[in-house]
């Protein structure tokens, strides 16, 4: 590492201080929730008077937490379907956009990315009104569609980055060797953009898993979603299982992230 000139030291200290603050703000709450989830008290309180695994045991109890389990199952299923649907849509869109220099491509990219800046609550409300105008009752399929709209931009970003690095000569080469467009996609394009597709799917999965605003409007009694259920529990009882569930979610997300990094890193090596 190269040494800083003495004059640069105040700046370096400032940057270090900002980094520490950012880390505290990001990681601090997570640590607080994790600690709280081990509390011996009957309600959410920090700092915990003592530590126990009791709330995790209760959370995993199939009878006492049946509704949480159902909501979690729904959430996972919706997240999975959302990841598949939004990644498929985003892959098609990203490939078309990457290949075209036309103005409509830029426009389409903007439209696809719009949900990123659109307030989720506004989109949720709009989706609910739109679907009821079409006389569609809330359903699992509509919920997935709503989530996929919100999640697609993440996948579009990651797949787009991979697709931009794709040498057009590879596609021409494949075509001239006699491959059909579908074969070219399956044998050349997809393997090469796989890192982007995989990380896009991962981001879409996570964004669906903790989505509140869209679920708020589009879920029903049958499709009770985990974040909504946890919010309901918080409001009514300050149930410590909410903290335990948060702890589980944080752990799952962290594990998935590690897994994805390994997998995508692996895919990237295989691709190169």
């Amino acid at each position, binding site marked *: 590492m190269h040494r800083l000139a003495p004059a640069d030291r105040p700046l370096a200290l400032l940057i270090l201080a900002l980094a520490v603050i950012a880390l505290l703000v990001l990681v601090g709450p997570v640590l607080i929730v994790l600690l709280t989830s081990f509390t011996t008290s009957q309600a959410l309180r920090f700092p915990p008077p003592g530590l126990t695994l009791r709330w995790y045991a209760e959370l995993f109890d199939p009878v006492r937490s049946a509704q949480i389990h159902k909501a979690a199952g729904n959430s996972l299923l919706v997240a999975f379907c959302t990841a598949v649907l939004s990644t498929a849509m985003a892959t098609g869109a990203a490939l078309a956009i990457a290949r075209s220099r036309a103005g409509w491509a830029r426009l389409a990219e903007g439209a696809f990315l719009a949900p990123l800046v659109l307030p989720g609550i506004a989109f949720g409300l709009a989706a609910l009104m739109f679907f009821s105008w079409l006389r569609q009752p809330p359903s699992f399929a509509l919920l997935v569609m709503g989530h996929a709209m919100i999640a697609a931009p993440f996948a579009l970003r990651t797949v787009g980055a991979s697709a931009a690095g794709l040498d057009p*000569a590879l596609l*021409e080469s494949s*075509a*001239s060797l006699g*491959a059909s467009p579908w074969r070219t996609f399956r044998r050349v394009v997809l393997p090469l953009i796989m890192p982007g597709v995989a990380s896009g799917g991962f981001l879409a999965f996570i964004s669906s898993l903790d989505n509140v605003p869209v679920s708020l409007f589009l879920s029903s009694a049958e499709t009770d979603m985990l974040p909504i259920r946890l919010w309901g529990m918080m409001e009514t009882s300050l149930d410590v299982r909410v903290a335990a569930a948060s702890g589980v979610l944080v752990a799952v997300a962290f594990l998935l992230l590690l897994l994805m990094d390994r997998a995508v890193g692996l895919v990237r090596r295989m691709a190169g």
Partner: protein
Amino acid sequence: MARPLQNSAHMLDRTDTPAALAPAAPAGHRLDMDGIRVRYGQATAVDGVTLSVEPGEILALLGPSGCGKTTLLRTVAGFIRPEAGRVLVDGAPIGHLPPGKRGVGIVFQSYALFPHMSAAENVAYGLEARGRPKAEVIRRVEAALAAVRMEGFAARRPRALSGGQQQRVALARALAIEPAILLLDEPFAALDRALRLDLQLEIKRIQRRFGVTAVLVTHDQDEAMSMADRMAVMRGGRVEQVDAPATVYDSPATPFVAGFVGTSNRLHGRVEAREGADYRVRLDVGASVILASPRGFAVGERVLLCARPEHLALRDATAETPESWPARLRISLPLGPALVHDVEAGATELKLHEARHGQPPAPGPVRVALLPTARPALFPAGDDA
């Protein structure tokens, strides 16, 4: 397809190939480009090009960037649909066929090897896409890699290969599908100069062995000279000259060709008199020379003389003759057995190329003479662009 060579283990084995693959012509296929015109928006990239490539021949498309050579190649490959004109293989139009059904193999400038596949998988790709039986694919991949002497690298990914090795794999991949026409798009541009000549020889050797008709796109005149049987010099979407490389060099059709292929000293002058089949030309640098030309000129017409460096010779400053002119030698560079002189005659800069005898001469006043045996090209001055 290609000439069957029984004696070579390196040849792709085609003794048991289906009838569809059997040689249709004994020595390769004929390629015709007939009145091809391609336009990008307002700009005309290829402007009515008609060219023929004889069976088994290498034709080089030579020209500066933007001359339309790559566009023409891509039109033959089927990536570009021309606004007008036809592409024919053995007299049959192929314009309606997609790239994969044209019987055209391409080596791209970037090689375009699939980075996630091994060398063998790359070569197998076209055969698998064509639905060949597995055993045949394996055998042909081995044969194609052997033909480019890459059999030891079958399992390597492109990234683990050098530029020259990647190019050989790309060539093997293009040849494995037994194309009627082989298209080479600046195949040496990404390689070190030192490596180029070896690979040029090698590709030419393989092309000869396969008897495949080839089109080489290049902006490098040396490459076109060494590789091509004939070269088409292009400018602004048009072909200025198609001839054997030596003919293009010795008898350029236009001042542009004279300047683009080889070095050319441009001397302006006026036709003084006609003497039989020859013209007496008064050069602006102050000399009077007698020249033969296949073109007709009127007495008094302004002309442009394009003299090769070896057409000119240095003379002693005191040896005044009508056919030499005064100049100043700026520097002489000994290049092995040759000398390159950098000379200025007024505002005109000249390059001379002579055999070296002893030490290079010192800079100073000299005279430059046109060698009596030289046949420099003579153009109407209006051709000067």
